[in-house]
């Protein structure tokens, strides 16, 4: 009965929604929040990249839609020198920047724009470096200012990057959002007009869509760039309807008020699967959610305790209750979509009795500890509090009494970085699809000092393997090094690897060729509507 009522209501809702104005091929995307701004190099949030770097800008290299393969973008081709210290890029010709009400480009895209885009971020004395706050967190975060020595213009359509050390993932880094190419001519013009910050507020790019209107917390509107070098997008208008609440997004999707939505509520997945108007696309996310033991604090200095608490957790129950099935049990710190993922790793099974025995062997009884639970929702952990409650109950069964602790997000990150926790729930989403981006950043000895290694775990044999892999160019050799590292990791158990999310993208049936991006972005160039 309820179900019928429900279906009827959907029909009405749909008819109401479609009573709106009909426009030639308008795709509506119910996005999850307002972007921080429109210059992707200034910010770090995926929400911002979805609204800026993907529709408005291009990069020298791009990730192929729906994969982590790097393909030519604004650079038609590139070559590296023998020693891996020089990269030369041949730029694409005839690429036009957007024409906006404040700016009409007088020339095509060329080497000056590339140099401007990188020097603005890397050179502290660049006239634009300090504009709009002047913090380029991703550029710094990927150590680009250390890696890039100089960017040189060879001729109008050739650019040479000189590096300070060989860095295998460099090209992949250039495909990342922060490396978006902006117009040097526009920047000069705005600087002359005394309004340099306009460059970031009213973006001008080469991308497939051009920003038309933005209303904070409400809507972003783009029109297709008719002169796009890759050909005009099949849709004419792209609209982001900003809708922070996941269940509301689903309602809008059902009602036909939007065509694509990100981050569905795990609770709604079942309903989506049975909804005939909606097509649920699924892909394993490039992420891992984990619980890290503070290996500097007793009793977590003892690997038997860490192993025992691994065994005490019923991961299956967590996947069911927290991910509502939209997750996979993680056995490695790497997600399965990354190369060098070790299939041979054997996970600790759920074994409370074994855990008790192991704890007794380690001489631990009546352990009182804490579990830190993140206050925010993340793909790798949609509900940390609920996860913590489950772990708390599991550990209680082996005689470990855990208190759940939470702080506001900034505080949480800071305090866990300082190592105040006993055990902490956190996770990671990959940036460029390289294993180094997970293992070294999260488990290396440098990171144990810097703090992103929340287990504060510095294990020489493990770290040596990572260092060696960093220096090695041969992918096969790197693979075997990383595979070995994963086995050591499992034996030492600095984490409980909990889950990799399964990214679900509900799209309406009329959407043609939407591809889930493994790196987490939402990209609408190439998508069509029936």
């Amino acid at each position, binding site marked *: 009965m309820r179900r019928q009522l429900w279906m009827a209501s959907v029909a009405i809702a749909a008819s109401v929604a479609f009573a709106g104005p009909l426009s030639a091929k308008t795709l509506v995307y119910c996005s999850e929040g307002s972007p921080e701004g429109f210059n992707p190099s200034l910010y770090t949030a995926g929400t911002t990249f979805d609204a800026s770097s993907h529709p408005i800008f291009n990069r020298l290299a791009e990730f192929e839609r729906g994969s982590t393969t790097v393909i030519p973008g604004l650079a038609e081709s590139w070559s590296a020198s023998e020693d891996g210290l020089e990269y030369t890029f041949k730029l694409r010709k005839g690429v036009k920047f957007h024409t906006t009400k404040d700016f009409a480009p007088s020339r095509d895209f060329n080497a000056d724009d590339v140099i401007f885009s990188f020097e603005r971020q890397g050179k502290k004395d660049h006239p634009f470096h300090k504009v709009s706050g002047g913090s380029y967190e991703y550029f710094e975060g990927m150590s680009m200012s250390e890696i890039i020595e100089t960017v040189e213009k060879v001729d109008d359509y050739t650019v040479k990057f000189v590096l300070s050390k060989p860095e295998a993932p460099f090209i992949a880094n250039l495909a990342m959002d922060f490396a978006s190419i902006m117009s040097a001519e526009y920047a000069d013009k705005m600087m002359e007009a005394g309004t340099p910050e306009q460059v970031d507020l009213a973006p001008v790019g080469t991308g497939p869509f051009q920003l038309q209107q933005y209303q904070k917390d409400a809507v972003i509107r783009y029109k297709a760039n008719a002169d796009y070098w890759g050909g005009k997008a099949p849709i004419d208008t792209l609209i982001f309807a900003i809708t922070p*609440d*996941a*269940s509301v997004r*689903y*309602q809008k999707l059902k009602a036909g008020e939007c065509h694509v939505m990100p981050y569905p*509520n*795990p*609770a*709604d997945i079942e*309903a989506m699967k049975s909804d005939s108007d909606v097509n649920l696309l699924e892909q394993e996310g490039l992420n891992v959610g984990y619980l890290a033991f503070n290996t500097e604090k007793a009793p977590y200095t003892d690997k038997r305790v860490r192993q025992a608490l691994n065994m005490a957790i019923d991961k299956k*129950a967590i996947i*069911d*209750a927290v991910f509502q099935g939209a997750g996979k049990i993680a056995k490695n710190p790497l997600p399965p979509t990354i190369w060098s993922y070790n299939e041979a790793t054997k996970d600790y099974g759920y074994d409370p009795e074994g855990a008790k025995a192991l704890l007794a062997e380690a001489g631990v009884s009546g352990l009182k500890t804490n579990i830190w639970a993140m*206050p925010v929702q993340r793909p790798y952990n949609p509900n940390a*509090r*609920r996860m913590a*409650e*489950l772990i*708390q*109950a599991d550990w209680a069964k082996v005689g470990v009494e855990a208190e*759940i602790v*939470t*702080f*506001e997000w900034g505080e949480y990150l800071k305090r866990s970085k300082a190592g105040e926790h006993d055990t902490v729930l956190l996770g990671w989403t990959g940036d460029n699809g390289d294993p180094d981006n997970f293992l070294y950043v999260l488990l290396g000895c440098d990171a144990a000092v810097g703090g992103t290694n929340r287990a504060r775990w510095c294990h020489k044999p493990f770290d040596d393997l990572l260092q060696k892999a960093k220096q090695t160019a041969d992918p096969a050799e790197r693979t075997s090094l990383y595979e070995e590292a994963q086995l050591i990791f499992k034996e030492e158990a600095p984490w409980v690897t909990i889950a990799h999310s399964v990214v679900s993208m509900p799209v309406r049936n009329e959407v043609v060729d939407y591809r889930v991006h493994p790196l987490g972005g939402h990209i609408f160039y190439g998508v069509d509507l029936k």
Partner: protein
Amino acid sequence: MAVTTNDASAPEPAPREPEGVTETAPIHPVLEFWHYFSENKGSVAGLFIVLILIALAVFADVVAPHLPSEQYRDHLLQPPAWQEGGSWTFILGTDPVGRDLLSRLIYGTRESLFVGVIVVSISLTVGVSLGLVAGFFPGIIGTAILRLMDMILAFPSLLMALVLVAILGPSLTNAMIAIAIVLQPHFVRLTRAAVMAELSKDYVTASRVNGAGIFRMMYITVLPNCMAPLIVQATLSFSTAILDAAALGFLGMGAQPPTPEWGTMLSEARDFILRAWWVVTFPGLAILISVLAFNLMGDGLRDALDPKLKRS
């Protein structure tokens, strides 16, 4: 938001001696009070519900069928007993991790009543003391206190409480402190107004002439005669406290899970709004019923204690 609206329904700060007592001497004041209080059937109902809530809170261990944090993992999101798929083991159904909703609601009574008691105690004590001081020393001190209260009242109470909790860190204790802070200006103003009115009366002057100390004057001579509006305001503040604590919990800034606080339960249940109506409906209903009960009681108290409105 609800806090400030209480202003409007709060009794007018014009306390008088209960004239009814002097006019009809034979009736004992308590009986007289009950007479007027029970005239309002709603108030009696409110009192009755409040007594039930207190009983539930006290005997939660006995009454609740399950422990509030016990997770029955084979019964995730089970609907209430009368619906298909429900069972009488979990009368109101279970939540996303398989905890019994009814038991959590019953234990939640403790949290809410606790919040009410603590918040009202703090804001009453602090507010009345400040109000007495402001009333007795209307000069610089009084003005300063009043200005400070004006400043606090200039901020919307929920926003103020939200920022305070953000500063102190989200927890039920800090939520209570924050709510007490935003509620006490009402007590200050009320007490001050009452004191000002009382001070001009003969019995106070007499007491003063007899050389009563300032504290004696404040707490023993004057305060008892200002009690009526304070009691009414305290009752209404009780409901505001429950409501605001729930609102903070709903915004994730109040009690932290797995505490079975109603607002927090609601906020945890939001994801399931379309799929499991019971996890959203019942905690809200519990909040509404308790708040309503205290407001009903407050209305009755006003009728019984405030002779001015009584006559009209």
